[in-house]
């Protein structure tokens, strides 16, 4: 039976709802602490959940990216196991180089991206709101096979702007299909301007994956949109599946 490990870093805070979201999609999952890295090898996929590892001190995800358990994650990822980083999890993946995931000559992951402080004319710093995203690439990933529409999803972060010192990198990632999700209007138009793009992220990119698609860093929170109850204006639909559940159901299908 395939199992997902949800890694609790010191300061993560979305682990419980991520676990519930996995279960609602038929995935078996366990929350494992950062100081239990040896347990990783028994799992088939990994979720780095949202939260504030080390309270985002210095830079979101910076300290956690050096946590011992990341060596285990890198090793398991090397075996092709899927790794999904949500919000702070995405920041950790970017700080550790697992996304975009290119290796140096010495075999070390290169840090080619950053998730920088938001550019937002309405609220500076941390910003929580509901947005819409859509798939922006045909690339197959373990997390997106069942995702086909524009859908609403919440974001809640202060450092969500994909950026690189290589000015052409984001374009290259788009061309290779690694820009998986983009912010858009309800009707699906990608407009690279506030409020459609809530944080100034380059080319309105909301999620980036590695070359093989097995590691994805996404800033919006699918576990917070896994039930219709959670979607603004939709709560009368109760416990029915919300749009974010498709991310977890896609993973379930992939692991079968």
């Amino acid at each position, binding site marked *: 039976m395939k199992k997902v490990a949800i890694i*609790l870093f*010191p*300061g993560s*805070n*979305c682990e*419980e*709802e991520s676990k*519930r*979201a996995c279960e609602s999609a038929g995935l078996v999952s366990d929350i494992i*602490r950062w*100081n239990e890295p040896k347990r990783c090898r028994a799992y088939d996929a990994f979720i780095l959940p*949202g*939260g*504030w590892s*080390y*309270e*985002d*001190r210095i830079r979101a995800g910076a300290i956690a990216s050096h946590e011992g358990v990341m060596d285990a994650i890198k090793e398991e990822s090397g075996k092709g196991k899927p790794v999904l980083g949500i919000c702070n999890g995405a920041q950790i993946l970017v700080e550790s180089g697992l996304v975009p995931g290119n290796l140096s000559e010495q075999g070390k992951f290169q840090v080619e991206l950053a998730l920088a402080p938001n550019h937002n004319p*309405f*609220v500076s*710093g*941390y*910003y*929580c*709101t509901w947005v819409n995203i859509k798939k922006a690439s045909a690339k197959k990933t373990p997390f997106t096979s069942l995702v086909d529409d524009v859908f609403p999803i*919440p974001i*809640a972060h202060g450092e969500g702007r994909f950026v690189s010192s290589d000015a052409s990198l984001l374009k290259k990632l788009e061309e290779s299909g690694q820009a998986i999700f983009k912010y858009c209007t309800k009707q699906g138009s990608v407009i690279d301007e506030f409020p459609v793009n809530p944080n100034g992220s380059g080319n309105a990119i909301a999620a980036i994956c590695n070359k093989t698609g097995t590691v994805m860093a996404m800033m919006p*929170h699918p*576990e*917070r949109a*896994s*039930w219709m*109850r*959670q979607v*603004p*204006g939709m*709560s*009368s*639909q*109760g*416990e029915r599946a919300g749009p974010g559940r498709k991310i977890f159901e896609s993973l379930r299908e992939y692991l079968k």
Partner: protein
Amino acid sequence: MNFSVPLLLLGFLVKSLQPANLLPKNTIFILARKTQVIGKMGGVDVEQVGIHAMADGEISAFLKKNSLALKVEECRKIVELLGRDPTLTEIHIFNIQWSEHSSYKSSKDTLKMLPTSGPTVILGPREDAGIIKFANVDGEQYGIVISHESHNHPSQVVPYEGAATGVGGNIRDVLCMGAHVISSADPLRFGNPFGKNLNKVKYIINQVVEGVAGYGNPLGVPIIAGDTYFNDSFDENCLVNVVALGIIKEKDIIHSAAPPDSAGHDIVIVGKATDYSGFGGAALASVILDADEEEFNKGAVQVPDPFLKNIIVRATEAVFAEIRKRGLALGFKDMGAGGIMCSTSELCDAGNMGGEIDLDNVPVALKDLPPYVIACGETQERFTWISPPEFTPTLLKIYNEDFELPNVAEGARAAVIGKVTGAKNYVLRHKGKIVCNAPVEVITRGIKYQRPGREHKRKFSEPNIPEPKDYNAAALSVLHHPNVASKASIFKHYDTEVQGLAVIRPGEADAGVQAPLPGKYPAVALSVDHNPKYSRISPFHGAVNAVAEAMRNVAAVGAIPYGMTDCLNMGNPEKPEAFRDFTESVEGLSVAAHKLWLKGKQDTPVPFVGGNVSFYNESTKDAQIDPSPIISCVGYLEDYRKAITMKLKQQGSKLFLIGDRKDELGGSAYYDLNQETGANVPNIDLESERERIHAVIDLIDAQLLESCHDISDGGLLTTIAEMVLGGEADGAFGAEIDISFSSLRPDKALFSESPGFVFEVKPENKEKVEHVLKTYGINPIELGTTTAGSKLVVGVGNKRIIGLENEQLKKAWTTGVPEAMK
């Protein structure tokens, strides 16, 4: 709160008791509780401060030198109580225990007016948090744990840290009952961002909001409600109140008391290493702030650490799971004002036990801290457990090893510091010497004052405001008023979605709603309210309105008001006018709670299960805040699927109004825009208000309403405009209403803040709605209809006086607060 305390004459009391009205002003009573055995008066090993031989002037000088807030006569009382001179440590202990903040010395008697029990109460205001009945699911009775506190003075001095530690401290109160913390709310009061102190005020606004966000967000506690007011009376004394909610099974409640027969149990503290921070914070809260006395503030800054707290919460929930698995009884209490001393003495006393503590076992961040700092310092993020010795090793392992507290923060850990004793003394040792030794109930009993009250000489009168020539402009300026406008630029700093329990989030409706049991339908609603200007005019009516508004807000989403908390932010109780403001406010709360009784339970008041009193919100320049009894109301909603928001849902619906528009613009936003205060605050007919509240709950339960919004700040016009806009200002429908039903001049009809509701009804439901309202004796007014294309049109009969597009409404409403904060 619910203190029925008989006064006992104890042998060593010198003053005899007389009827209260014959006593001179500000007489001190020593409060005692019935105890079977009083511990022996103990000896100490260190130097004592020779109070008994000192003259008043010498005592004053000593107090000032040591930055103590005690009064001279209070010092003499200490000598009487102990039967000897106190040590310096003991003086510091009483300094905190007898501060207003810790002892409620000025407020205890008045608070007895409030109803605190009833069929919806699992635990009243006795311990760290109150507990309201929630759903019974799968045979388990659940409760909503609620705590409501203030952190006003620290937020005026260091607004980020003050707000953050306010959130932190309040959340600890909920956690320590054994609950899982699910949400919080932040009622905030700031000065005038356009007035003479605008720079300071704007600094405080921005930093307080950052502080609230900077604590709750990393911790993972979503904000689901709040409110914000701006006016001059808060220029030098901002108010930062916090409410926190938790969910718990009734059988899992952990009490803030040493369990029965716990002699020999370990006293274990958990959390940050103790340092100087916050030392004297409780005493600081009871001192009037003076800009020149900054020296006094040094060392009083409490440093928040939500990162450490996040880990402590997770470790603590692991401890909860373990003790529930094993069926063990432990005591648990958070540390706030008075630190280790206060939490340990109260834990022991509440269990009718004593305690002995070795201060050398307390993990400290600095060497050579004086014993009174170790004992009383208010370092954040700390808790106290009373643990059976056989469980203590597991307790320590979970915190120190599984969750690696020492690696998370310097010196943080769980440590055994003492033992619970059968002898009812409270003993502190430091470097092998006894520095405190007194009967534990002497430490905890506090003191009480009878304060005189006197009515203010101020008079208020109704102004003569000319009718506006341009109603469009008048409407837009009301919507733009920071006390009316959208607060999205504040609450979008807050993570409202973490934990995934949100059903209705801030801005969408009058109350926030969460479904705290994942997969189950029962929901909790929360609203926080009070209009400070109303209380400036009439503290009694201001308080009544706060209760009514909080209940209206909860009803507007379909929930039944089950319980409330009250945080009484007031001026200087030693001033008779300010004390009268306080007693009148409490009277108003009591009257409203009784008249707006529990739905379905005639004459059973909606209870107050928790709260706080914050006095001395006054600067020495005699600028006193508007009396601010801030209320939170918790509502129960059986099925979250029935909850509705304020946004108009379709075109062609009928719009109904219940609640007469009266000439009640005293304290209103409209008058404020005309530089007037007025006199006619809403004088609520509570019988009718109750019927309206209960009717709305029934209508929503029967799913007869499409949207609903109460009337408060900004009046009827604002209510309709906000229904057109919706929380995100992206509403797709408009409204066309006729206000000729009202005999008031149109501006008064539109902007009067008399209570009421507006709701949207599908044409096919109109008759059923009227029928339900009739059973409550309510004749609704048919205001108008909803329209396609989001325009707001207001007419008086055939004459159109307002025609505003969504873009205009949106611009006015969404820019009001950002402009105030810039």
